[in-house]
């Protein structure tokens, strides 16, 4: 309780510091609005679209894509990582294509995703999925690989079924590393969602950004950027709380 409270204080302080720097850059340092609008102008732009209800439409759409992509990427990442650590022979063949597919910069392919997968929400989800997948996958592989051999002995001894071994031993043991991947994946999901909307579409925070950027409505642009950052922070905090819950057994240092 107390700790959570102090965490909230820290976040607030940090945000206040950021706000101050922002204010300083636009006030005393006099950066022009078209480069960086003042916090007040941005706030006004935000309030304006919040009042018309437009904001919630965009926000909801982006959030929905993020959550969908995150869940799918997460499931696939963990599943494929598991299969590959269980069957190293398969990994020889799958590893290369997976890595090549992943290191291919999505931003370059994003426009093509639209022609490949259509204008609908599918191409967006696929883009987000493809960005989330890899961090979770790599994290899960690391987690499954570092499994304590004593745990392997135990599961072998108890003759656990594949499902039991996964559920009861391998998954919990790999959790810390999976969470590393998940936290990066969450950020990537956000980046992917915005990117997808940037490339095509008529709704979402990314769309709001292209629109604002092309029409030089910089306060609106930064209002949208602000919303993405807030979204990122919320996702991060949610994952951190979940992590603390699930990994309390680790007795983390400074937990």
């Amino acid at each position, binding site marked *: 309780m107390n700790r959570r409270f102090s965490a909230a204080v820290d976040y607030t302080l940090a945000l206040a510091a950021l706000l101050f720097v922002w204010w300083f850059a636009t006030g005393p340092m006099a950066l022009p609005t078209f480069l960086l609008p003042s916090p007040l102008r941005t706030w006004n732009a935000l309030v304006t679209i919040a009042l018309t209800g437009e904001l919630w439409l965009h926000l909801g759409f982006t959030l929905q894509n993020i959550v969908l992509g995150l869940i799918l990427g997460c499931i696939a990442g963990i599943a494929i990582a598991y299969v590959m650590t269980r069957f190293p022979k398969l990994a020889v063949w799958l590893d290369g294509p997976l890595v090549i597919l992943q290191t291919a910069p999505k931003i370059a392919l994003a426009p093509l995703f639209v022609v490949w997968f259509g204008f609908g929400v599918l191409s967006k989800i696929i883009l987000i999925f493809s960005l989330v997948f890899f961090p979770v996958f790599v994290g899960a592989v690391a987690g499954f690989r570092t499994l304590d051999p*004593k745990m392997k002995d135990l599961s072998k*001894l108890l003759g656990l079924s594949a499902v039991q071994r996964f559920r*009861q031993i391998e998954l*919990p043991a790999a959790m810390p590393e999976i969470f590393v991947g998940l936290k990066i994946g969450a950020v990537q999901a956000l980046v992917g969602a915005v990117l997808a909307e940037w490339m095509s579409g008529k709704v979402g925070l990314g769309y709001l950004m292209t629109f604002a950027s092309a029409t030089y409505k910089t306060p609106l642009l930064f209002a949208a950027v602000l919303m993405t950052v807030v979204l990122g922070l919320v996702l991060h905090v949610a994952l951190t709380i979940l992590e603390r819950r699930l990994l309390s057994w680790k007795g983390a240092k400074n937990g």
Partner: protein
Amino acid sequence: MAQSERMIDIAGVHKTFVADHGTVTALEPVSITIREGEFISIVGPSGCGKSTLLRLISGLDQATGGSITLNVSGRKRPVGFVFQEPVLLPWKTIVDNVRFPLDTAGVARAQGDKTALDLIKMVGLAGFEKALPRQLSGGMRQRAAIARALSDDPPILLMDEPFSAVDLMTRDNLNDELLRIWQSTGKTILLVTHSVDEAAYLADRVMVMTARPGKLQCVHTVELARPRGEQTKLDPAYHALVAQLRRDLRTPAGEAH
């Protein structure tokens, strides 16, 4: 307790590890037949291959040569194992750890809980059911591991220095509990220990192993009356055996008698 059925057949089993710094012969060929319901103690110097032998019997490692046959047709989990270090799942509470073999064998939760709580009480951990392993002392963790190995009642029990980290009194209690369980269930038990007193007190036969390269030096049949108890420790035959075991262990490797 004499049974004639063969339970574990070990024939010429040996094990060599290959490592960067050279090959290590952990176990030279060992042959012995263990009958159903027998209680075997294993003593020997540190690093002589006792743990290796148990791991081979349990099937966790593969022998470099020789064969091991377990006569446990039809049992899915023939062996219970108390590892030398307590291997508890750090994310599960003590009661969940002890119940774990039952849970994964499909035993109903209520039934499992009952068994687990009884065993936890037996090993003296009442009050720590909901604690996590890292919140226990070394000896308490070891006792939790013992409780877990007993929970699903395996016909063969392999115990690798199960009582090394507990105090004398607890150890005596647990020895007697173990004998009680053994007597009532007819398990076959192999127990590695560095205490010759314990080895003699518990076993039907004591295997003495020699230092590296580990091999079987001799096997003593313990002729002490069952059930054992305080009176056993007053028996001169018991003390003679303990003294003999001590002498065996003092014999430098190679000078087997």
